[in-house]
């Protein structure tokens, strides 16, 4: 699937949300779309899915079966979770409820099957949204912040499902501003900022193929302060990704407390473990 010079804005005189986007998604790829709130991640995903039409340009070679998990599942519907999924299966042309049963069980929705959608918790409603997108194996799975509201156990299912879709030849686009991308092995990173999409070959989360991303130079930038954050070792990679996705500059990763930046310490092993490598910017000292 290819974004061919996509321009998009929500109203005639509104500023462009996306400008001249050229990018491609290939079968078997997982693309993680990063960016600040309001940068245009959801817009890009909806353009990919076909929910939105580009103002200019076109999305070409879109797969026939699309699975879209919206950022907010439309729970204001007078159905139970089971009724909704059964009806959506019928809309997708499925006969019987085998697929519904499979995803209800897999996503741990069994006890909520008879609960009205409006009464589901946010996370459970999100699972229903995920289930409806997977009733038929999609050629393109679009996940808009799929981790929102999910509990820890359910969050681990996302990488599994993504891997299954890509293994079946599908592509996956997933937006993430929570830094959960660490679980998506082999993913490619796109950053949405300033109405442009920047596919990055040096992805934080794709070390085996692209190598780690560079740390930002620690040179002085006006209006910036340095905030030190301590995270668990196992969560370092996700924390770095989240901070960078939120538009912050990550200056370093190190073992012990102390000032980082000019004159600060750099822990190479930790940095590599977190998917980042030593900065070469001016002002750093070993």
């Amino acid at each position, binding site marked *: 699937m290819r974004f061919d010079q996509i321009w998009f804005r929500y109203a005639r005189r509104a500023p462009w949300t996306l400008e001249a986007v050229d990018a491609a998604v290939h079968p078997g790829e997982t693309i993680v779309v990063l960016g600040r709130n309001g940068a245009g991640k959801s817009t890009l995903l*909806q353009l990919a*899915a*076909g*929910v*939105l*039409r580009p103002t200019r340009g076109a999305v070409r070679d879109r797969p026939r079966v*699309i699975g*879209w998990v*919206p950022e*907010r*599942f*439309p729970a*204001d*519907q*007078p*159905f139970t979770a089971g009724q909704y999924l059964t*009806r*959506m299966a*019928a*809309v*997708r*042309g499925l006969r019987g409820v085998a697929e519904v049963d499979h995803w209800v069980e897999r996503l741990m929705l069994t006890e909520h099957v008879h609960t009205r959608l409006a009464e589901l918790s946010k996370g459970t409603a999100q699972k229903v949204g995920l289930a*409806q997108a997977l009733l038929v194996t999609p050629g393109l799975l679009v996940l808009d912040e799929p981790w929102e509201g999910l509990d820890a156990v359910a969050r681990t299912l996302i990488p599994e499902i993504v891997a299954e879709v890509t293994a079946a030849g599908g592509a996956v686009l997933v937006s993430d501003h929570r830094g959960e991308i660490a679980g998506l092995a082999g993913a490619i990173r796109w950053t949405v900022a300033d109405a442009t999409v920047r596919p990055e070959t040096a992805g934080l989360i794709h070390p085996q193929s692209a190598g780690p991303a560079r740390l930002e130079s620690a040179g002085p930038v006006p209006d910036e302060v340095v905030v030190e954050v301590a995270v668990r070792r196992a969560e370092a990679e996700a924390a770095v990704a989240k901070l960078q996705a939120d538009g912050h500059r990550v200056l370093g990763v190190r073992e012990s407390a102390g000032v980082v930046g000019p004159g600060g310490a750099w822990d190479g092993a930790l940095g590599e473990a977190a998917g980042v490598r030593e900065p070469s910017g001016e002002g750093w000292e070993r």
Partner: protein
Amino acid sequence: MIALVRMRLAGFVRSGRALAPIILGLVVLGVIYGGGSSLAGPAFGYSAALLFPVLAWQTKLILDAEPDVQRRLARLTVGAGREAAAGVLAALVSGLAFCFVAMLAPWPFGAIRGPLPGTAEPSMATGVALGVLAHLLALAAALGLGASASRAVTRKVRNGLTVLIVGAVLTVVLGLKGSVAPWLVPPVMATARALNADPLPPSGTFLLLTAWAAAWCAVALGGYGWLRRRRS
């Protein structure tokens, strides 16, 4: 697409949104058939004309019942054209059921009668047949107006209500006898007048009314489809 139509009808009924137009429609029918009896043709002509705005409102309610995000999910699933058609089809099915009730309503109350002996009044069968036609023409017009007023194309509640109310009022005002531009609106009033005429107009008149209503409905639904494509 049939599954989507069924899902939308189920959502419309289960959500309770179906109740308001049904109650209003029954009140309208009660007023029409509440006192005395009249010939079938004129009675059904009034019924169709008065139910037109109710049917248009019901169409809008059906098309608006689904959350916007769910409508987009449906579009991804069945395609844009089928998704839009499924909404109109759901409204058509619901409207046909309404018209069926409207056609049955006068019978229990003895509110319609056949021709008086020794008069040239049209037969009961003719009156019923013309009544069915009048309701179908009103329904076609209502589908066009209701779809044009739906949230998917008007986006804002205020805009949708404005389209619905102004459309219904213009249909009456521009449909009055002697109107300067009767062709701008569907022939709801013209059909009611035709059914009340004594003697009945020739069959060609009803063919013309049918073509007029069909053309109006096609234009309105064509505009609806075009706007749906543009406002995805």
